[in-house]
Each structure stands twice: as structure tokens, then as C-alpha cells.
């Protein structure tokens, strides 16, 4: 099997005319053909379109034209980020044959930079889930151990990058859906600050929480992609009207006297021993580079999941009201004696899977008359307390260091109780509550029996401080080799 290659590595070899784009794309298509039957990362592969575009890029290069920073690079996007080609299904039966009439801003920006959208990746239905077990089109398998989940909801994207089925992928993150699968699959996943990347064309789940971000093989690729994705967009009034820094400019320059905050709550008895060990190791990596390690107290950490599972389902129940069987998507058959309400109820009950229904039920309940104050309003008040706790932490440190998840990937079918699945979001959902940015990095492995399962290290930074986040992440990555370790599948093609 050809070596897995980073975006920046391939950009060089395309620019130097060492490799033709059409050959690169064909290699990826072959790899998908060979490996994805084991993994189920892709919902759709746009083979013909990808090869056509690659030929065009080759011609442009031949003619000496400027081809854009991502020219010819096969990138995958999550199934909830719409494009006007192919279907955009959001992992749901409701949108099984849905063809979007427009392309999302994020996908457009990649395409305008020369990238080739090679396919759409499977995800938990409407991005609700932490395991990809809630995808209507089958479970995605973790390339490190096919009995394990790849994480979710951007599990197809993370597994595809880990297995080398694309150079990079887009995910979306409402409560950890980029970072947790990145951690489970040993790749890099960045959740930008709320407002950094346009949400236009991202199927809405939790509108005050959702962000699109890159999943890549290393930190530099993530920085490059975010630079292209970020920035104001007239189609999203919540996109920030702020300039986008060149995240790559100083990425290899370590930050002098970086203040690394380590909340005592992040090294916990609820984490696996290997996860705690990986965090302690990461602290030493920074200390060795002259960073100042700052003890931080974040007692609200344990309240993040509770606040999140009020706010996110509340917003979801409202956002998903649009799937009513009337204007687009699935419409159920009704009998001659049935009315409009029957049509709504049947379409929604047939179109949605169990996790989506559960969250709509939960969200509808917490917003219903008599419960709004006790649940939703209180959760929004706790949200402010959480934001204030982060503000005071960032007065004392530049980054917060901890684990992405309490444990590595779990087995498919292992978590049958929804709450136990939700509690795994303890270190990620709270970032979205505060609206700040965070990145998950390969940070170690847990060995159990004869297998290695990846562990993710998370760096959280203040709102719109992605520059510090990437530089600090690169400081860790430059001193470690975890990100270079690939699953056997990616190297040999064997599970």
C-alpha cells in the first residue's frame, strides 16, 4: 500500500510535478475500494467527478496556472455538510435521497482552493451520537480495532483520515463530534471558536453550539485547512466579522514561556489509567520546553454534561421541527381518513432513528410549559457560570491541557445506556457550552490484550485564539511521535 501522506506533503509533490493529481486521486479511490468495505466510512464516493477534476487540475498545472493551495487533494466531508452534487443525507433515512440545491460555505471554500471532494462520510444521524452506532446507513468501524467504535458523530471522517482514505476530512462538532472521534482514531481534530467558520449549509443540530472543523493527520494540515475555512460569511449572521490570521505563519516557533493550565478535575478517577498517564506525560512534554505549568481549579467541569444535555436537545427539538414530511425529505403514506397531523407524526416516526427521537423527546420536555425555567433557563444560567469559569482560567494561563475523552474507544454495542454514552462527553461538550476553541491530538496508546487503542490529548484555548492553540499543539506534536503511528490497516490493508 502506498504511504499515507499529509496535505502539505502532497502539495509539495504536486507542485514539483513529482506526482500527477489524477494518479493521486486514483490511489485514494483504490484504497477506498479496498478498505472501506471493512470500515463503512463513506456514504458516497464521487469517483468520476473526482477524476474529472483531477485531470483539470493537471492541465492547469501543465499550463503553469495558479491552482490554489489545496489543488488536487482528495478531501472528504461529513454527510451533514451539504453540496449541490450527490446526496446529503445527515446519516438519516429522513434525507436518504435529499439533493441540496446549494453548496455549504465550508465545502465551497475547499473547492475554491482546488480541493477535490472525494466523498461524504457516514455520521450519527443528524450528528447526534458519540459512536456512529446511530447512523441509518450502518456502523463505521474503528481502523485500529474493527470491534470498536470510531467515535462520533464525525466517525466516518476520522476513520477515513486514519485509514488514509482521504488526505483530510471535515467534521462538525456540537459537543465533541470532531475531537472525540479524532481521539479514538489517532488523528488531529480541531473545533474552532463558535462563529469562526460559517455554518451555512451545515444541517442545524444545536445552533448555539455547532461548528465545522478539520480532521487531519497532523497539526499543520489542520492549521492550513482552518485558514481556508474560517472567516465572515454573508450567509451566516453568526459568523465572526474578524480577520483570519495565517495559522501556519509561526506554527513551528514554540511559544516562549507558555502558561499551560492543568485543571485538577481533568486527571480523574473516572479516566482510564492510561488516559491519566497520557495527560501527565503531556504536561512533562510542555515542562521540558520551558512552559510554566499552572494549577487550575475548574469545579464546574462535572456540570458540563448536565447543562449540555438540556441545551443541545432543546435546540435540536426546535431545529428538527422542520422535518415534517411537507416540504422536503421523507413523506409517509397516509390513508384516506388520516389528516395532516397523521402525516407529520408518521413521517417523523418513520424517518428518525431512536437517538434522534430520544433527544427530540428530551428537548421538547425541557422546553415545555412549566419546565422551561427549571431546566432550560437554569441550564443557560449554568452556561454563563461555565463561561465565567473559563474566563478566569484564561486570565491565569494560555492553554488548558487535559484528555479529550475519559477512555479510549469502546466496543460496538458496549454502551447500551444513553446516559453512560453522554457522560463520555465530559471534557468536550463543555467547550461548546463556552463557545471557545479546542483541538484533540494523538497523545498515547492504551494497550489491552494484544491491541493498541489511541488516546487523545485536548488543548482548549480562549475564543478566537486558534493561533495559540495551533502553535501550542505543534509544540506537543513536534516532540512526540504518536501522530505518526498508523493502524495496521492503513499500512498493510489487513485488519
Amino acid at each position, binding site marked *: 500500500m502506498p504511504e499515507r501522506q499529509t496535505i502539505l506533503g502532497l502539495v509539495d509533490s504536486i507542485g514539483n510535478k513529482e506526482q500527477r493529481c489524477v494518479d493521486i486521486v486514483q490511489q485514494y479511490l483504490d484504497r477506498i475500494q479496498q478498505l472501506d468495505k471493512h470500515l463503512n466510512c463513506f456514504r458516497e464516493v464521487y469517483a468520476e467527478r473526482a477524476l474529472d477534476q483531477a485531470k483539470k487540475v493537471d492541465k492547469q498545472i501543465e499550463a503553469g496556472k495558479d491552482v490554489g493551495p489545496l489543488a488536487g487533494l482528495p478531501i472528504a466531508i461529513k454527510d451533514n455538510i451539504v453540496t449541490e452534487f450527490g446526496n446529503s443525507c445527515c446519516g438519516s433515512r429522513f434525507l436518504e435521497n435529499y439533493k441540496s440545491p446549494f453548496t455549504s460555505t465550508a465545502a465551497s471554500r475547499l473547492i475554491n482552493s482546488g480541493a477535490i471532494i472525494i466523498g461524504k462520510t457516514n455520521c450519527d444521524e443528524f450528528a447526534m451520537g458519540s459512536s456512529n452506532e446511530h447512523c441509518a446507513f450502518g456502523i463505521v468501524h474503528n481502523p485500529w480495532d474493527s470491534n470498536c467504535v470510531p467515535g462520533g458523530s464525525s466517525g466516518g471522517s476520522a476513520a477515513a483520515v486514519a485509514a488514509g482514505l482521504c488526505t483530510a476530512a471535515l467534521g462538525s462538532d456540537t459537543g465533541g463530534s470532531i475531537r472525540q472521534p479524532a481521539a479514538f482514531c489517532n488523528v488531529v481534530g480541531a473545533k474552532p471558536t463558535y462563529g469562526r467558520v460559517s455554518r451555512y449549509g451545515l444541517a442545524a443540530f444545536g445552533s448555539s453550539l455547532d461548528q465545522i472543523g478539520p480532521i487531519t493527520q497532523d497539526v499543520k494540515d489542520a492549521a492550513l485547512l482552518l485558514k481556508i475555512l474560517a472567516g465572515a460569511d454573508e450567509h451566516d449572521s453568526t459568523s465572526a466579522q474578524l480577520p483570519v490570521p495565517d495559522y501556519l505563519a509561526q506554527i513551528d516557533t514554540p511559544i516562549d514561556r507558555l502558561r499551560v493550565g492543568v485543571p485538577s478535575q481533568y486527571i480523574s478517577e473516572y479516566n482510564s489509567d492510561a488516559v491519566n498517564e497520557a495527560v501527565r506525560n503531556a504536561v512533562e512534554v510542555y515542562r521540558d520546553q520551558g512552559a510554566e505549568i499552572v494549577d487550575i481549579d475548574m469545579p464546574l467541569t462535572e*456540570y458540563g454534561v448536565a447543562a449540555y444535555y438540556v441545551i443541545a436537545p432543546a435546540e435540536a427539538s426546535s431545529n428538527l421541527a422542520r422535518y415534517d414530511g411537507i416540504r422536503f425529505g421523507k413523506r409517509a403514506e397516509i390513508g384516506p381518513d388520516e389528516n395532516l397531523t397523521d402525516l407529520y*407524526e408518521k413521517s417523523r*416516526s418513520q424517518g428518525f432513528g431512536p437517538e434522534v427521537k430520544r433527544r427530540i423527546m428530551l428537548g421538547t*420536555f425541557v422546553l415545555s410549559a412549566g419546565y422551561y425555567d427549571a431546566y432550560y433557563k437554569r441550564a443557560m444560567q449554568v452556561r454563563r457560570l461555565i463561561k465565567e469559569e473559563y474566563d478566569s482560567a484564561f486570565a491565569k494561563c494560555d492553554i488548558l491541557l487535559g484528555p479529550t475523552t475519559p477512555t479510549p474507544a469502546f466496543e460496538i454495542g458496549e454502551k447500551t445506556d444513553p446516559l453512560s454514552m453522554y457522560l463520555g462527553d465530559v471534557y468536550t461538550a463543555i467547550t461548546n457550552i463556552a463557545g471557545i476553541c479546542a483541538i484533540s491530538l494523538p497523545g498515547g496508546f492504551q494497550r489491552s490484550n494484544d491491541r493498541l487503542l489511541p488516546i487523545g490529548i485536548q488543548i482548549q484555548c480562549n475564543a478566537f485564539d486558534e493561533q495559540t492553540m495551533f502553535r501550542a499543539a505543534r509544540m506537543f506534536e513536534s516532540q512526540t511521535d504518536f501522530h505518526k503511528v498508523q493502524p495496521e490497516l492503513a499500512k498493510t490493508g489487513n485488519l
Partner: protein
Amino acid sequence: MGFGTLEEVDKQLTIQEIKQVAKLARLRLTDEQLKQYQGQLHTILKHITKLSELDVEGVEPMAHPSNISNRLDEDNPTISLAQSEVLSLMPQVEGEYLAVPKVLPGSDEDA
């Protein structure tokens, strides 16, 4: 429904209450699903009662992480989706109209 504060969530929602939530959400659930969601919502809501441990007296609710409010755009008309494109997304159309089941009860005559 039976209770209004977080502390009282120890009581499980009754099947009738679960049915009422499903009705509000326009979901038609089987008896088995109702029972399953009754148990699962109870477990989740019980965890959420953690929020009542915190003093939120006088704390301004935060609905959104950004501090943008009501950004206004110039009123410049642009080309929007063609009618045919929108119609092609619809599950059922009649001519240039979206078709839906009869909304008002009464005569079967087309107006």
C-alpha cells in the same frame, strides 16, 4: 404533568406524560418505545438535577456564546432559488403547488 422543579424529578414521568411529550414533538411511539423512553428520560433527567446544586440566583441566562446582536444587512435583492428547483425537492406537488392533505375538515369539494 406532575412536577415543576428539578428536585422533584425523582418521580418518574408517567406513560401519560411521556405520551403528551411525544404528541408535542409530533412523534408517534409504540408502547414499547414509550416505556423505553420513560426509563431513559428518567435516568437522564436525574443526572440533570445536578444543576440544582449550583446557586444561579441573579445569573443572566446565556443563550449564545457570541456577543453579536441583530446584525443588519443592506437590503440588496439577490437571485434566489428557482421555483422549479424548490418544487423538485418537494415530496408531492400538483402543478406549481406543494400538495398537502386537507387541513380544514368539511366539504371534499375543491374550492
